[in-house]
């Protein structure tokens, strides 16, 4: 009886913890296996604790090169997609023009289309244009598919923005540039930031489109894929764990700043 009652009382907590475990477990496995010392080339069975990989994360040929390339592509793709996407979002929400509805739905196309189809079409396009596959083709492709996510995130924010705020700024002696910098941009910032983070994450771990259009260039996801055929170095787990920890730290710092700001405002 009392056990049943306890379960009933804590049902939501139990369900929450189970869901959390479901989401985090894979990450924990990656983490644990970054301290493994495998026999042979595959890191799939636990052998013994070791810090070897952590002490020499770049010890595998081409790994850190591919990581750096991926980070560069993600950075530029984020920048490009965020700048373009923000402008598109403002145009779609704030202005009425011909084909606005059509553009509104076309923006969703990259999200809806199977990635492999888009990858193949892009390759066809690049080959027909005589483009040399590599860094630039990958970057162009990434900006293209990140764009729709940025537009969606920023559009949601801009739609909830009161256009009267900008009128108030203009009324209070702010010219067009000042109005944008002092009012429009800060208020749209959360949406833009969300779009940018999404773009970075998508670009950084994209495999299919990248694989089709990279030519002989190798990004980090391609490197992991390649090694999975021939043997997985522990360093992959190290990089994975590091990325995960950095992401978690960033979220924590962000929440800390937000809560401090909130308590400051209250006092």
């Amino acid at each position: 009886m009392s056990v049943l009652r306890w379960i009933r009382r804590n049902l939501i907590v139990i369900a929450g913890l189970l869901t959390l475990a479901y989401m985090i477990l894979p990450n924990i496995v990656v983490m644990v296996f970054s301290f493994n010392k495998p026999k042979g080339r595959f890191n799939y069975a636990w052998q013994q604790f070791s810090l070897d990989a952590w002490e020499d994360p770049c010890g595998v040929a081409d790994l850190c090169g591919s990581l750096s390339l991926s980070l560069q592509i993600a950075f530029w793709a984020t920048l490009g997609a965020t700048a373009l996407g923000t402008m598109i979002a403002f145009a779609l929400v704030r202005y009425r023009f011909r084909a606005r509805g059509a553009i509104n739905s076309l923006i969703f196309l990259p999200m809806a289309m199977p990635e492999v189809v888009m990858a193949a079409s892009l390759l066809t396009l690049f080959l027909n244009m005589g483009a040399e596959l590599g860094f630039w083709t990958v970057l162009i492709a990434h900006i293209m598919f990140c764009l729709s996510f940025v537009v969606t995130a920023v559009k949601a924010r801009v739609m909830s923005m009161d256009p009267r705020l900008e009128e108030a700024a203009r009324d209070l002696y702010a010219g067009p540039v000042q109005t944008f910098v002092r009012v429009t941009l800060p208020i749209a910032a959360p949406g833009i930031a969300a779009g940018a983070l999404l773009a970075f994450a998508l670009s950084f771990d994209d495999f299919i489109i990248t694989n089709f259009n990279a030519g002989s260039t190798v990004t980090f996801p391609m490197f992991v894929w390649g090694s999975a055929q021939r043997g997985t170095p522990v360093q992959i787990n190290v990089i994975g764990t590091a990325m995960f920890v950095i992401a978690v730290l960033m979220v924590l710092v962000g929440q800390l700043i937000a809560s401090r700001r909130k308590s400051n405002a209250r006092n």
Partner: protein
Amino acid sequence: MTQQQQTAGGDVRLAGISKTYGSFTAVHPLDLTVPQGSFFALLGASGCGKTTTLRMIAGLEEATTGTVFLGDKDITDLPPYKRPVNTVFQSYALFPHLDITENVAFGLRRRGIKSVKKQVDDMLELVQLGDFARRKPHQLSGGQQQRVAVARALINHPQVLLLDEPLGALDLKLRRQMQLELKRIQTEVGITFVHVTHDQEEAMTMADTVAVMNGGRVEQLGAPADLYENPRTTFVANFLGTSNLIGGEIVSTGENLVVAAGGGKLALPRERCSASSTAAGGRLLLGIRPEKISLAHADDADDIPAGRNRVTGRITDSSFIGVSTQYVVESPAGTALQVYEQNIERDTRLVPGAEVVLHWNPAHTFGLDAAQDIDAGATSVEDAE
């Protein structure tokens, strides 16, 4: 620059200003002068063009035709950020990412004024929000946000302060309080206020001059008491308070016009008649305010002094309001005549169904042109928003 703005004042003058959106005319060519230092109200139901007119003064809306003058200066082509005019927006439009101090300092900073602290403190003192300087707008109540919006505009010492339904979002009690507060601030700073509202009571309480707008035109302009006592159109008569309008035919003219209406004869002073033709035989609408009418039971009809306008009828409805009782009377002159009686000595016979005589001083009657919609403006405040 600030000094100059404060001293080189002047009237706001709109000359032939109009606004059309495609085929829709929001404001018909309009001439209006708002004297310097006055509290001016633009009153009308939503969609009457009052906000558009205000926004054309602010520069937020481009006038289709006409000129906006501030003093002798033509400001028609100036963008809003170059006009010495500030606006208190409907729903305030406070910047959510800035605290109260920065909201209020915004205009000063944009004009390159560095030391804003003292001015901001003084201004927050004026609106009694000194303790809230570091809060964000969403942490303030509606009334407090409203005062921040006023402070944010006033700190720039504009020549004209524009208020777009500034009290619309507040509850009734707070609204009354803020009306007095705004009036106090206006008297204190002496700046011209142009106030847009759909609330006729608000307009009459606060403004020196009220312009009643309807369908993109100014119907009538004047001091509140003048508008109330001498409406010149049925719209103004019905929109500003309540009026009983009785149609009739002029039977004799002279110093007093005598009109046959509802089976009797009613008199009104000729100078209170705004109809274009006052010749005998012409049609006329007689107007009388509900509180100017006295109500007598039919049995006491003989006690009514001679020389008063009389209408007989039957009470169909009565509601007790506290200070007064409001009666609806059915009579040959009109089906729903409104009568407000002060509750001084209540006659217990005055209940629905009772036969009564309505009587009033002929001098309290006004006359309107019969060629207009008798119900114009009658569905006023409740339907406006």
